[in-house]
Structure formats: structure tokens, C-alpha cells
């Protein structure tokens, strides 16, 4: 799954007709979303092609006449009436034909049945385990006045803030997800386990992750906003609204927001919407530049470095800034202060929209 090599050279037309890609776009299983998000993080130049391919797949339909609900109902009722008292009868023609086809597909039929049974037993298992897990949940409420550290069965670490409550299973074995319920504020450092996504349910949203660290602020009142802040890695956040939580992450993923480092999502329960913004003070990874003191340094180069240091997309018009240089000392400044200095030099301004910085 982690091997991105096959897809590196894919173009829009290849994505549109690729099985794995299509199944992500149409079914969006959590593990696929993680996979493709990580792919885009690693190959940002593919993002435009992927988005176009997604648009095409989602809007692709077959022009066809369909039966209305009433027509389906009519057919069903008529068949029910005509078969009301009829005992099973022999009719050889019907059988003989299916026999031929059965012979052709004998081996293969056995195969598809095996798959169905597997899925079926998985569903049954999921059902029983969630009932079972119900009885082995631990609930911790922190009223100690200071943060409390909790280590889960998978070695994930949670710092639970004061006046906050968390509920988690004592053991994740046998579950398809690692499911945690939070009310209040907490910081998560999640152990990597690709086969078992980590889900945090909190006041109207669900945050999904494979292994990363992030912070959740889940207010007890619906009027306040919930916040998910990413410290490292990639997480996906979904508003639950009136849907069933499991369906939100596996099927419709309406309103899905993907967050990377230094981004946060704010959720308003009353409006059931999520907004991506930047964290208040973005933290750079180790910078790739030797110095923050620039003398006649190309501004495009500095912007590129900021992008990769902070993991934040900075959108600007290359042509406009191509020959512009900067002479300034940016050391010790926050991201926003750096942007102020750059924009002053360019006689431009910047805005933060949708978790991205746009220089105008």
C-alpha cells in the first residue's frame, strides 16, 4: 500500500480508470483516504490531476431510463400476487440454462461466494465486538486541576486536560477501529497502526488518523466551536451531523476536511460545518535554509522555503515576483511576521483562506 511508485507517472486519464483510485473516490474507505492524502502530500504536483480525475469520476453517469419507485412497486406487487399460492414446480428449461452457465463459472463462483461470506462474517464480527467492547470501556474524568497522562493499549498517549472526560476500550484487539470518545480538551500522540484507524468522536465531529499527533478542543456547549489542531502527520475530520458516525467515515464523507501540519479545523455544531484555518502560531520543521538573513535573495526562493518549512501552501503569482529580491533578517520571527516583512517588500498583502496563505 505504501508503494507510490506505480502512481507517480499517472495522468488524469489513468486515475479516472484506475480501480483503486475509483474505489477511493466512490466509497472512500478511511484507509484509502489516508493513502491518497499521503500520496498527494508526497507528490504535490499530482494534486491538480487528481482533483480533475475525482471530478470526472464523481460526475460520470450513464444516460439511461430508470424505473420509478412506483413502477418498481408495481412489478413487485404483481409478482407477489401471482406467486401467492403457487407451490414450487419443476421447469427444466430454466434449470438447464443456468446449469451451463454454472459449469462455466463453477470455480469462479466458489470464489465470489467465499468473498461474500468473508464480508458477512466480518460484519457480524464487527457487530459483536462493538457490543463486547461496550462492556469493557473505561471512562476517565479529569478533575485534578492539572493535565493527566493516559497510555492506551496500543501505546498511544493522551494528555487529558482538566475538566475533560474520555472514554476508551481497554483493549483494541478484535476491533476494526480504535474508537475514543472525548468531551473537553486533549492532546493525542497516536501509535502507527495502518490496519486499525484511530477515531476520536467529539461533540459532532469525528477525527480519523493512522498515526500522528494532534489536539482536540471539544466544548460541552453546542454554541462554542470545536477545534482540531494538527501537530504532525495528516488527519481527516468529518462533521457527523445527523448521520451514523461509521457511515460518515466509510461512505459519504460529506464535509470531509484533510488537515496537515500547522492546520486546524474549526467546527460549528449549530451549523454543522467545518472550516480549515492555520494554527495561531505555525511551527516550522527544521529549516532548509542555512540562514534567515537575506541579502538580495530571490523572494520566490524564500517563499518556497517557507512552504516546505511550515508545510503550508502559499499561493502567489510567480510571474509577478520572479525578479524580486529581499534584503532582511527574518530570524526569530513568527510565520506571520515573516509574511509581513515579505509583503511589505513586495508592496503586497496576504490572506489566510481555507488553511492556505494567499499573497495578493
Amino acid at each position, binding site marked *: 500500500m505504501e508503494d507510490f511508485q506505480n502512481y507517480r507517472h499517472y495522468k488524469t486519464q489513468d486515475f479516472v480508470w484506475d480501480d483503486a483510485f475509483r474505489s477511493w473516490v466512490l466509497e472512500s474507505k478511511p484507509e484509502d483516504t489516508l493513502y491518497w492524502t499521503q500520496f498527494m502530500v508526497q507528490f504535490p504536483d499530482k494534486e491538480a490531476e487528481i482533483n*480533475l480525475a475525482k471530478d470526472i469520476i464523481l460526475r460520470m453517469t450513464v444516460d439511461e*431510463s430508470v424505473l420509478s419507485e412506483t413502477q418498481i412497486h408495481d412489478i413487485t406487487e404483481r409478482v407477489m400476487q401471482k*406467486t401467492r399460492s403457487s407451490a414450487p414446480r419443476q*421447469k427444466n428449461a430454466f434449470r438447464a440454462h443456468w446449469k451451463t452457465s454454472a459449469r*462455466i*463459472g463453477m470455480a469462479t463462483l466458489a470464489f465470489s461466494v467465499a468473498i461474500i461470506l468473508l464480508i458477512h462474517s466480518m460484519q457480524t464480527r464487527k457487530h459483536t465486538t462493538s457490543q463486547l467492547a461496550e462492556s469493557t470501556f473505561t471512562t476517565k474524568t479529569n478533575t485534578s486541576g492539572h493535565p493527566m497522562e493516559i497510555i492506551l493499549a496500543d501505546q498511544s498517549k493522551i494528555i487529558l486536560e482538566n475538566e475533560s472526560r474520555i472514554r476508551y476500550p481497554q483493549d483494541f484487539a478484535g476491533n476494526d477501529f480504535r474508537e475514543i470518545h472525548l468531551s473537553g480538551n486533549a492532546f493525542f500522540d497516536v501509535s502507527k497502526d495502518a490496519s486499525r484507524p484511530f477515531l476520536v468522536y467529539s461533540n459532532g465531529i469525528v477525527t480519523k488518523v493512522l498515526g500522528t499527533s494532534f489536539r482536540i478542543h471539544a466544548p460541552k456547549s453546542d454554541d462554542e466551536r470545536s477545534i482540531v489542531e494538527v501537530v504532525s502527520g495528516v488527519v481527516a475530520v468529518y462533521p457527523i451531523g445527523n448521520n451514523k458516525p461509521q457511515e460518515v467515515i466509510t461512505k459519504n464523507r460529506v464535509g470531509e476536511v484533510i488537515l496537515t501540519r500547522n492546520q486546524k479545523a474549526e467546527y460549528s455544531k449549530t451549523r454543522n460545518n467545518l472550516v480549515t484555518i492555520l494554527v495561531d502560531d505555525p511551527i516550522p520543521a527544521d529549516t532548509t535554509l542555512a540562514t534567515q538573513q537575506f541579502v538580495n535573495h530571490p523572494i520566490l526562493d524564500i517563499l518556497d522555503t517557507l512552504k516546505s518549512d511550515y508545510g503550508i501552501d502559499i499561493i502567489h503569482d510567480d510571474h509577478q515576483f520572479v525578479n524580486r529580491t529581499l534584503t532582511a533578517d527574518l530570524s526569530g520571527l513568527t510565520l506571520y511576521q515573516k509574511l509581513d516583512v515579505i509583503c511589505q517588500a513586495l508592496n503586497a498583502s496576504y490572506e489566510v483562506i481555507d488553511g492556505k496563505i494567499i499573497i495578493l
Partner: protein
Amino acid sequence: MDLWTQFITGDRKAFKELMETHVGPLFKYGIKFCREEELVRDTIQDLFIRLWERREHLSTEANAKAYLFASLRRMLFRKIQKQPDTVPYDNLEDAVNFFSMEISVEQRFISDERLRFVEQQMKMKIAALPTRQKEVVYLKFFMDMNREQISNIMQISPQTVSNLLQNALKKLRTDLRLILMNPIFFYRKR
């Protein structure tokens, strides 16, 4: 116990649910072979009546969806071929009009002129695929069937399914590539 197995044991409720689930998709599929809606509806009705009568002889192991599609296809062919002026399906392998399908990109909500452009072009290209390739593409991508189910429905070997699919996709990818080479795609819109 799944719906199919429940139906075989004589459960009327399961039988009804089986119909409610499959009648819609069966009609969509059937209408690709024959433009007479009434004939397709009648055939689906006959199919389920016989299914109920024959239930004791059906295998619980069978894949319900593939079985129903295969039966409808067979029954429909028999009816169509009784009509004058029809040619057997197998002789039509490379004809383009028998399995009539047009894929389009939904008009609703499209403000993006690029997608409108893709829509117009794709319609033409898909319509031009050979009959059997179109049927495989339809079953796989729009009816969510796997290779084994398609092989059962179309009465061809799994390997033939793969070959048909591969040839169709090769053509569809090339077509889409040519469509996307239009200058309309070279400036990026947000």
C-alpha cells in the same frame, strides 16, 4: 442467513426485498439491449415469477446479483430473437449499436467549463466502443460487478472478460488523454 438463502427457504418477505433491491438495476441493464420498456418490465416480472416457482432447485451458494442478471439477459435474448429483423448477439460482437450506452458527466452543478467539455466528448467516445467491450465496462464500473460475476452473466471465460476490459480501458484512456489535451485544460482554475 442472507436474503438469497432466506428466499430459497420460502421466506416471502425476503423474496419481496430481493425484488425491491434488484428490479431497478435489472431494468437499467435490460433496457440497454432493447428499447421497448414494456418488454423489459414484463421479462423482469416473468423472471421473478419463475424464480419463486423454481426456488427449491436453486443453490444457496449462487451469487444472487450475477444469477439474476444472467437470467434476464438470457430471457431477453430469447424474446428479442423471436422478433423479425434481429441478428444473434454473438454475430454483433463488433457492432456498436446493440448494447446502447452513453456515459456522460452530469450536467447538474457544473459551473466548470472544462467538465462540460469532457462530458460532450466522452459521450461520443464511449458510444463508439464495440458492443461487448461496452457491456463489460458497464457491468464493471456502473453495476459494480467483479470479473467472475461478469463471466457468469455474459457466458464468457474470466480471461475473456479481462481481455475485453483491458482493450476497452486502453481505448478509453487514450480518448480521455486526447480530450484533456485541449487548450481549455492548460490554465488552472480555482
